[in-house]
């Protein structure tokens, strides 16, 4: 790898804002909410267009973001760019590192979103596919471009994304790579391939991301599957089988969100599938102990997006915050700390003033060469999403598809009458890859489900 280890520990020392470990226990904060959640209705939400109906009350902007995602000064225990914004605008911002995992965050707030109750945030920062889901469901408010003049600074390739054409509902916060991170003291040779990640000496000390698209994306690319264009369930199942084998063989210690960082520091994990910026930050905090590389077989590229939830009554102030972070100078300050790919045009020039080495980093301002090594996981339909995440994290896919296998009967081919197929039960997706025709088959269960739906009518 030519791109490995761009940032020397010395460089890192220079970066102004240094950090200490902050709490990562947030992941288990949702205990005890199950009962409350159960009381929430689970009827289909009426699909409303992104509304701007909520009255603007002004006041504190409550912002939910991922951990270690904004420049932080350990000495003053404050976020310098945020402090500067509050001073210059007079708007108070309550910044909370409340997102540990897209699914988990969605699971916590979606009941309130559906009922239109305040979720406690005016800005949420979520990954592309999850942002797409919020926009689709009408859980976001349309951004007013006049309040965000700096919106024009967004990188061209991010300006028009599939899930939000024209960026009317979202604005990129940071973009990054998923790849391998490792402890340089324990593994001086580094990790560049999936084989090296699952080498026998790492047994029980490997952690992978719970972000399905990142972990599965890396494994599927290792198996030679193109995750950007189409892939089949069979190919996905192959990757699941691979991962499941590694779990049952005891290689994988944890399937986690952001919390893999603490295990790397404590030494409980030595190699991970992790995110680029995290690894560089960890390394700078720990005297260059960690490193990151994009897998030789290919990594993934993702973005996190700022959005204003439909329940927020503080839209204008929230937009002002977004506008502020799209000033190239501010964006460069944030990028110098978080080390993710900066989505703002002109930030590279500003970065030259802060640290020329960072301005040259392909992990912050990626070159075409670096970008050629990563792919974006293709968008999934809601049915695929549920099925794939059940298969990926629903525990024991083998028991699952054994069960499916038993019920499997090929009644009718999809190709016989393509117009009739509207819905394939999630069950029908869990078929074995060795059956070539399986993707085109009905299962008995699908029939049962379909009959139910016919009887009770289709929604939408």
């Amino acid at each position, binding site marked *: 790898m030519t791109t490995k280890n761009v940032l020397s520990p010395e460089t890192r020392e220079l970066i102004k804002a240094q950090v200490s470990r902050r709490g990562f226990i947030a992941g288990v904060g949702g205990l005890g909410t199950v009962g409350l959640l159960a009381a929430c209705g689970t009827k289909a939400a009426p699909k409303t267009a992104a509304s701007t109906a909520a009255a603007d009350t002004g006041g504190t902007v409550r912002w939910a973001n991922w951990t270690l995602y904004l420049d932080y000064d350990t000495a003053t225990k404050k976020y310098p760019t945020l402090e500067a914004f509050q001073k210059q605008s007079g708007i108070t911002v309550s910044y909370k590192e409340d997102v540990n995992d897209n699914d988990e965050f969605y699971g916590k707030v979606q009941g309130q979103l559906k009922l239109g109750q305040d979720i406690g945030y005016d800005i949420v920062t979520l990954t592309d596919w999850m942002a797409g889901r919020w926009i689709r469901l009408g859980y976001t408010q349309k951004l007013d471009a006049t309040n965000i003049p700096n919106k024009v600074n967004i990188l061209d390739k991010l300006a028009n994304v599939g899930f939000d054409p024209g960026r009317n509902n979202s604005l990129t916060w940071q973009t990054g790579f998923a790849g391998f991170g490792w402890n340089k003291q324990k593994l001086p040779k580094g990790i560049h391939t999936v084989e090296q990640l699952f080498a026998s000496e790492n047994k029980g000390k490997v952690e992978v991301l719970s972000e399905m698209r990142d972990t599965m994306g890396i494994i599927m690319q290792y198996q030679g599957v193109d995750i950007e264009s189409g892939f089949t369930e069979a190919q996905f199942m192959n990757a699941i089988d691979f991962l499941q084998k590694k779990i049952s063989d005891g290689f994988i210690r944890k399937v986690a969100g952001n919390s893999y960082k603490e295990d790397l520091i404590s030494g409980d994990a030595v190699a991970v599938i992790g995110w680029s910026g995290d690894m560089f930050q960890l390394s700078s905090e720990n005297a260059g102990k960690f490193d990151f590389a994009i897998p030789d077989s290919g990594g993934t590229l993702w973005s996190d997006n700022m959005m204003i939830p439909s329940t927020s009554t503080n839209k204008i102030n929230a937009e002002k915050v977004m506008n502020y972070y799209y000033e190239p100078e501010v964006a460069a300050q944030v990028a110098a700390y978080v080390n993710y790919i900066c989505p703002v045009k002109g930030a590279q020039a500003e970065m030259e003033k802060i640290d020329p080495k960072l301005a040259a980093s392909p992990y912050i301002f990626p070159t075409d060469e670096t970008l050629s090594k990563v792919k974006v996981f293709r968008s999934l339909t809601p049915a695929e999403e549920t099925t794939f995440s059940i298969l990926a994290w629903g*525990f024991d896919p083998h028991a699952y598809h054994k069960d499916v296998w038993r019920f499997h009967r090929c009644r009718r081919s999809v190709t016989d009458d393509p117009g009739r197929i509207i819905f394939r039960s999630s069950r029908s997706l869990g078929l074995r890859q060795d059956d070539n025709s399986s993707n085109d088959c009905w299962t008995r269960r699908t029939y049962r489900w379909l009959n139910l739906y016919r009887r009770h009518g*289709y*929604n939408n």
Partner: protein
Amino acid sequence: MAYLQSMATRASTFSGKKGRLPYLLLAPGLLWLFTFFVLPIINLAGTSTQTPVIGGDTGQYVQTFRFANYIDAFNASREQFARSFIYATLATLLALAISYPLAYAIAFRSGKYKNLLLVLVIAPFFTSFLLRTVAWKQILGESGFVVPTLRALHIIGPNTTLTASALAVVTGMTYNFLPFMTLPLYASLERIDPRTLEASNDLYSNAFTTFRKVTFPLSMPGVVAGTLLTFIPAAGDYVNAAILGNPNTTMLGNVIDSRFFRIVDYPTAAALSFMLMAAILILVTLYIRKSGTDELV
């Protein structure tokens, strides 16, 4: 005289309301139970038979009374079901084995230190359950002192870890639920009349026989209460498995958590919650029948 009269009237009005009073006293509790137990349970039951909206987005479900959800949910997580009950049983047995001598010592042999020892048993509860579990992860992890020490003494191999294992999960549960076992045991042991033990001695039984025939049977209510207070929360626990376990030690609580919050698959999660509840209820009823203490039912 006036005083007596007023007392008499008061007594009579009091007795007149006697029929209603118990209900009034019950009302807050019943209202609470109804709002926060009965209603959610009904809602949960409703959720458990829903199916996804066709063409709908993740998390959208309609009621179709599909009871096969239960079969699907069970089939998909049989392993975790088994694991939950095995781990909970192990943790309960371990807690009993540790707590009984402890409670016995506090009840009969602690003398003036009795109160101090009781406080020590409860003291960990002054800190959050979560923090204590995370603390164990640190203590038994690579950065703690236990693993390096054991490695230096060649008790464990260089690649063996103490956390992220089934052992850690069971130990964590035992630790976390220990006071729930100790306190009921202590309460029932403390109530034992020492004269029954003396009588046993007078009838020429040795210490062991006294324990077997007198002390233990008399402490049965404590044993039953303690095991239930440990087993029930342990079977539904997911914190220990999440913090101290690995992907191969997931328990049913973790599956339910993940279905609810991660996959947003409410019907399956609700069905699993119901089955867990039913399984615990059946086991507990059988256990109470078998152990012959009706006090608790």
